[in-house]
């Protein structure tokens, strides 16, 4: 029996900055429903690789395929809409906006209703509900009204995780809503474990 095609396929990807080869012929095949960790010393090129996957950078060579479709050269928002979400190494939030709004923006990113010029945000029920749900999952349910910039560092990392989670797009292949593939960049193991634990608890209690 042939193994299923990988969800994410990185094939011989390189990225150079002038003379510096930051990523040098990396290949990786990631099947669905699996977790991988990429570790390495400073300067190894981890951040560059993540930026190549989610589109902040374009590869100098090689290609990246998601669900069999190439991602190379696509804009970050297009890649996100294919079903890839990520967190960032340095906290990359919306500092003056409230925690709830940070999450709601992520949840509303599919664009439905976002071009509404005269309507009310309150009437977009689905993103608001998803935002509250994610807030609970990452342990920020008590801090919804707080501007993101005023959270503690740990809370900001939780929100960072939350924003990546709240981003959800419909993936045709998987036929399921939800961020299909997530890049957790610089989120501590304990943070992720706590999240997974909470999610299991929430699910088990349904």
């Amino acid at each position: 029996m042939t193994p299923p095609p990988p969800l994410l396929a990185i094939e011989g990807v390189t990225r150079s900055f002038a003379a510096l080869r930051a990523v040098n012929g990396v290949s990786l095949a990631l099947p669905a429903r699996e977790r991988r960790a990429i570790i390495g010393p400073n300067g190894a090129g981890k951040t560059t690789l993540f930026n190549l996957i989610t589109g902040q950078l374009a590869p100098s060579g090689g290609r990246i395929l998601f669900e069999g479709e190439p991602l190379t050269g696509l804009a970050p928002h297009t890649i996100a809409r294919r079903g890839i979400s990520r967190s960032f190494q340095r906290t990359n939030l919306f500092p003056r906006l409230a925690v709830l709004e940070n999450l709601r923006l992520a949840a509303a990113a599919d664009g439905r209703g976002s071009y509404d010029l005269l309507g009310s945000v309150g009437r977009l029920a689905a993103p608001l509900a998803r935002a509250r749900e994610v807030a609970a999952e990452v342990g920020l349910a008590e801090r919804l009204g707080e501007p993101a910039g005023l959270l503690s560092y740990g809370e900001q990392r939780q929100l960072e995780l939350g924003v990546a989670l709240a981003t959800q797009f419909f993936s045709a292949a998987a036929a399921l809503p939800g961020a299909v593939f997530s890049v957790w960049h610089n989120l501590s193991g304990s943070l992720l474990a706590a999240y997974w634990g909470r999610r299991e608890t929430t699910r088990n209690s349904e």
Partner: protein
Amino acid sequence: MSYRLATFAVLLAVFAIVPSFFGNYHVKLLQEILIWGIFAMSLDLLMGYAGMVSFGHSAFFGIGGYVAALVLKQSAGTLGALVFPALAAALAALVIGFFSIRVSGVYFIMLTLAFSQMFYAYTFQVAWLGAEDGIVGVPRASVLGVDTTTPWAFHLYVIALAALALLVLWRIVRSPFGHVLRGIHENEARMEAIGYPVNRYKLLAFAIAGLLAGVAGSLYAQFSGSITPDAFFWTTSGEALLMVIIGGTGTLGGAVLGAATFILLQSFVSTYTERWMLILGVTFITFVLFAPGGIVGALKGRIGLRA
């Protein structure tokens, strides 16, 4: 909320009856403030909510003015007073915006400045637009069946448009679209990463702002009966910028306050001293340094009004 709506209504009523108590000079001042207020509010949408600091907003003001002037002299109706100027300005904003949003920061400033200067250079030279003297003899029109050629009617017309502009912008910044703009202002890269086609939103914001600036320009042509290439000059954009910052960036109403400050300084202060430009410059610099929230920000801090 209804408290604010009530204040707004009272203010409009007060403006409406100004001609009964004040002479021509003061009435014209008020109208000029409201017209520039529309122009400055449209810039505030760009600057305060979408985070795009443009030095070329005068392009749309000028286009609105010139298109209005040209059409109104042929036929003084709604098309010339509102429809064509707004459409022309919006179209220009789509084109200019399409190129300008590809760059940001200082480069955005210089690119938008270059575009508006192109219009200045063109209108200054060509005879069919009156060259340096521009177009004169612009009539007031019959708008949507209402005759605005009498002083009273025109006065109410200006107030109505200003109020409408404020209400429309107010709804827009509170809408889902407005929230996206604010997200872009806060962290454009993150918005891009979570799936928003940021350029599309910026372009739409640019077009809306351009459209409203065009309405202001058209109104200005009807107000003064003429339009000159100066409407396009980069200092016109700069003056709108001053108004937004003095009033309070990102407050909408602040832009009108800023317009009032500028125009009152220009007219009243200049009767006592010639140094109104100096006072304006110092005021502006003081605000930038110490009160980046502008007048509205300062008021909120003192009286504790909610956002």
